[in-house]
């Protein structure tokens, strides 16, 4: 850095402080107004009974007490657990497809893109495509089942099956995402280590487990992050495919919150916010873990 000389202005002398502030300001301001402060506002709104227009009444923790006895909250929470657990299947499934496609045969690039492209479709389109796929009369699923003599199944009409049907639809793009992460990761795997493993007689599963997977760790981490976040954010598919039904059996917290706060059943902003807070706290466990992990990497990189 140039030493400060008397004829420099205040701005010039402090440019290393002023420049980053000026560059950060617009983005930071936007982010604080629209993302950071709403989080805190939601916490406070959750302590009120408010229809979004009139007077908001402070009711303390009553919204949370009501949640404890709300049957639909229990169903939604349980469905969130199903989503979380089953959505993680996208990771091994993506790895499997990536291994299948990691070859150099003519046209393989096109195959990779075509396997990936469900991820580019909007969840709305995925939801529509799958709800038509499941249709009892016109749907392809039942046409295929019919070939094997199995009776028609109304996947989305059956309270016991509907959630699984929606999760399966969600797994389609999510698996594609994990696949592309692993394909990129496999490209960077050190060929010398593979050769060394081969010389030591490692093959197939053992090679995958002991030599390849450790090198794919960064890919696995990102796959884990995006899959967990995706599972807890599930909303579009449910809204499009069943709209929470049948009999509220496919609701998850994100959907229940929307329904309570902003639908024809009444505008209960406070109660909705309480649900959002619970969802946020669940997510916070994961966010905390991800950030801790990234912070750790950042520290290592600095040394």
């Amino acid at each position: 850095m140039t030493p400060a000389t008397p004829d420099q202005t205040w701005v010039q002398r402090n440019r290393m402080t002023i420049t980053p502030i000026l560059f950060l300001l617009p983005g930071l301001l936007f982010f604080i107004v629209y993302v950071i402060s709403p989080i805190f506002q939601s916490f406070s709104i959750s302590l009120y009974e408010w229809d979004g227009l009139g007077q908001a009444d402070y009711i303390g923790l009553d919204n949370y007490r009501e949640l404890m006895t709300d049957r639909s909250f229990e169903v939604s929470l349980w469905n969130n657990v199903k989503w979380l657990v089953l959505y993680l299947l996208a990771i091994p499934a993506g790895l499997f497809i990536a291994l299948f496609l990691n070859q150099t045969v003519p046209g393989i690039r096109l195959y990779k893109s075509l396997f990936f492209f469900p991820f580019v479709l909007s969840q709305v389109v995925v939801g529509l495509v799958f709800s038509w796929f499941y249709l009892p009369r016109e749907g392809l699923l039942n046409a295929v089942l019919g070939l094997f003599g199995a009776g028609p199944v109304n996947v989305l009409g059956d309270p016991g099956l509907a959630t699984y049907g929606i999760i399966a639809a969600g797994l389609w793009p999510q698996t594609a995402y994990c696949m592309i992460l692993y394909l990129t990761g496999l490209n960077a795997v050190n060929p010398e280590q593979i050769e060394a493993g081969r010389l030591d007689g490692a093959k197939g599963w053992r090679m995958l487990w002991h030599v390849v997977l450790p090198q794919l760790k960064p890919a696995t981490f990102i796959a884990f992050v995006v899959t967990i976040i995706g599972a807890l954010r599930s909303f579009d598919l449910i809204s499009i495919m069943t709209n929470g039904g049948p009999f509220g059996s496919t609701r998850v917290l994100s959907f229940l919150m929307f329904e309570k706060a902003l639908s024809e059943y009444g505008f209960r902003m406070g109660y909705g916010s309480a649900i959002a807070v619970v969802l946020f706290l669940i997510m916070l466990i994961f966010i905390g873990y991800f950030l801790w992990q990234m912070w750790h990497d950042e520290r290592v990189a600095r040394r």
Partner: protein
Amino acid sequence: MFPTPIQKRSRPVQITYQTFLPLALILWLLPLLAVMLFSIRPLSDFTNGNYWGVPSSFEMFHNYGRVFFESDMPRYLMNSVFITVPTVIGAVALSCMTGFALGIYRFRGNLLIFFMFIAGNFVPFQILMVPVRDLTVSTGLYDTKTGLILFHIAFQTGFCTLFMRNFIRALPYELIEAARVEGVAEWRIFWFVVLPLMRPAIAALSVLVFTFIWNDYFWAIVLTQGSGAQPVTAGITSFNSQFVAQYHLMSAGSIVAAIPPVAMFFAMQRHFIAGLTLGAVK
């Protein structure tokens, strides 16, 4: 390379692989292929129960023509364009700046601000919903494209900052130091030294944000309601209630809604994938 290259395996294994490849692809895309088939069938096929046989006639132009000329679909598509493009420009511009500030300068709170951007990017939308909707209503921006654009820019800035900052970190720092020794002003370093090197990152983020915003549904239904401002993801539900149970038209409609991001992906594949892996997996 893992698994063992197919060329080194026996002939039967190679043939099996080559036949399985297209079969697996067809199986993978089956639900979508079904919708494509639906979208070129005539209505009479559905009333006659001919769902999976050869279409009795190919009505591609007729079906897609009706989507474009007898519904609000073109309007929704235009809304999507006018929401997506400004968001991409805004979010990428803001994050070039934040990324530059966080990637180049050392100051107290640098890492803290960076992690705030990352954390905000992971939160559930529902925790933002009530206050953001309230803010949008009170500024008179409810049911306008501007209201939606402003929120999208703010939210995407989180992800874009993460990406840009890491990208700038990987640039050779000597370049900046050399420029400083020459006495180049800081903003000129940003404009003439760093920005030209950020082109690949800008391309990757633009494609990614384009897809994210085009495909957004939640904020579209929270912040807009009519065909005046709603993007195509939200508009498709009213489209479907206009043509209820006419599967040939609904299929054509959803294919039309899906095409722009798909085209974007196929045109800019390399950038797209570089962006998705967050640059962490090289």
